[in-house]
């Protein structure tokens, strides 16, 4: 049953609004949604074309807003973010670890870097142009020994075990898993900064504390990203099953 007569309409809905909708709507629904809109548009256009155009734009904008929002939090988008962001953070963290191991002149990074390092804030090197100009040269100086630290491995092992426990619980949502996973990865580094701030350590004692925090981050980023990727794949499989 159609709401309207079978006469071929001459007036077309705004092309730009249609284009925006065809980009944002999922393939499965695009045809039906655009068809429904055109059907109602044709009825309104017979009475008042200006009102029909305005109505069409209102519908198109509100519908675009809804589906743009959905697209931004879609499984595919989250999957890409969960891959690229941890990868970038992993490379940057590796660079900071090498810098911490080889640094002989902190003023080469910035005038204030030595003071910041004494507070455990190795991440401030990320704001230095010198660090980025020489990033790949710094990374090239990496040795395997710099990345092996027993205490950090132990902390990371327990953190990942906790996350796996959460992952195996079927009720754990993707948001809960991501927040817990990335929090567990960052907590040791944040703790190291707070620990240094609350105690009066000598300069030579600060390095190992910062190293523990930042190595925990390095160890945990890949497994956390992988566990979230697995959960996202499960979600995707459920979505596909429903749409088949």
């Amino acid at each position, binding site marked *: *049953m*159609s709401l309207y007569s079978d006469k071929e309409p001459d007036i077309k809905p705004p092309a730009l609004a249609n284009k925006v909708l065809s980009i944002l709507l999922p393939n499965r629904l695009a*045809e039906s949604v655009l*068809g*429904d809109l055109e059907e109602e548009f*044709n009825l309104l256009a017979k009475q008042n074309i200006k009102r029909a155009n305005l109505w069409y734009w209102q519908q198109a904008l509100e*519908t675009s807003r809804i589906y743009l929002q*959905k697209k931004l939090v879609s499984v595919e988008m989250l999957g890409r973010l969960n891959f690229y962001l941890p990868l970038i953070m992993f490379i940057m963290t590796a660079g900071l670890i090498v810098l911490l191991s080889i640094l002989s002149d902190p003023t080469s990074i910035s005038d204030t870097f030595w003071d910041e390092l004494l507070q455990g804030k190795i991440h401030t090197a990320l704001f230095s142009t010198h660090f980025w100009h020489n990033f790949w040269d710094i990374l090239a100086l990496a040795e395997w020994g710099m990345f092996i630290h027993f205490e950090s491995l132990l902390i990371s092992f327990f953190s990942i075990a906790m996350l796996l426990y959460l992952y195996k619980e079927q009720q754990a949502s993707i948001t809960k898993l991501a927040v817990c996973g990335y929090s567990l990865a960052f907590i040791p580094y944040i703790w190291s900064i707070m620990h240094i701030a609350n105690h009066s350590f000598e300069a030579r004692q600060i390095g190992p504390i910062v190293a523990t925090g930042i190595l925990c981050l390095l160890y945990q980023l890949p497994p956390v990203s992988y566990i979230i990727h697995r959960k996202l794949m499960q979600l995707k499989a459920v979505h596909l099953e429903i749409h088949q």
Partner: protein
Amino acid sequence: MSEKDKFLGEFEQMTMLALLHLENAAYGAAIRQLLAEQVNRDVAIGALYSTLERLERKGMVESRLGEATAQRGGRAKRYFKVTAKGHSALNRARQAMDTLWQGLSIRHSLCQKG
């Protein structure tokens, strides 16, 4: 199915009731019009489809592609139907509301508070 998937929101209930009213003619434009005329809910077509998609995910509604017409620019309609699971959920929601409404009226409760 998670706990929240067992319950229906107000707009979900309205949409499913509209599908039942429209029987075999329940497609986007018709549902939107019925909601606007009968309950004064003039929603965007995107909001309606978003709700229908969610109901489909919950297994309360199913859809199929229908015929295309010239008024639709040659595009096919998507017809929606309430499933058996959807019927049970609607009945459950109605029973819950009836139970809570028993012995109450808004005027009565306002008078008591006043």
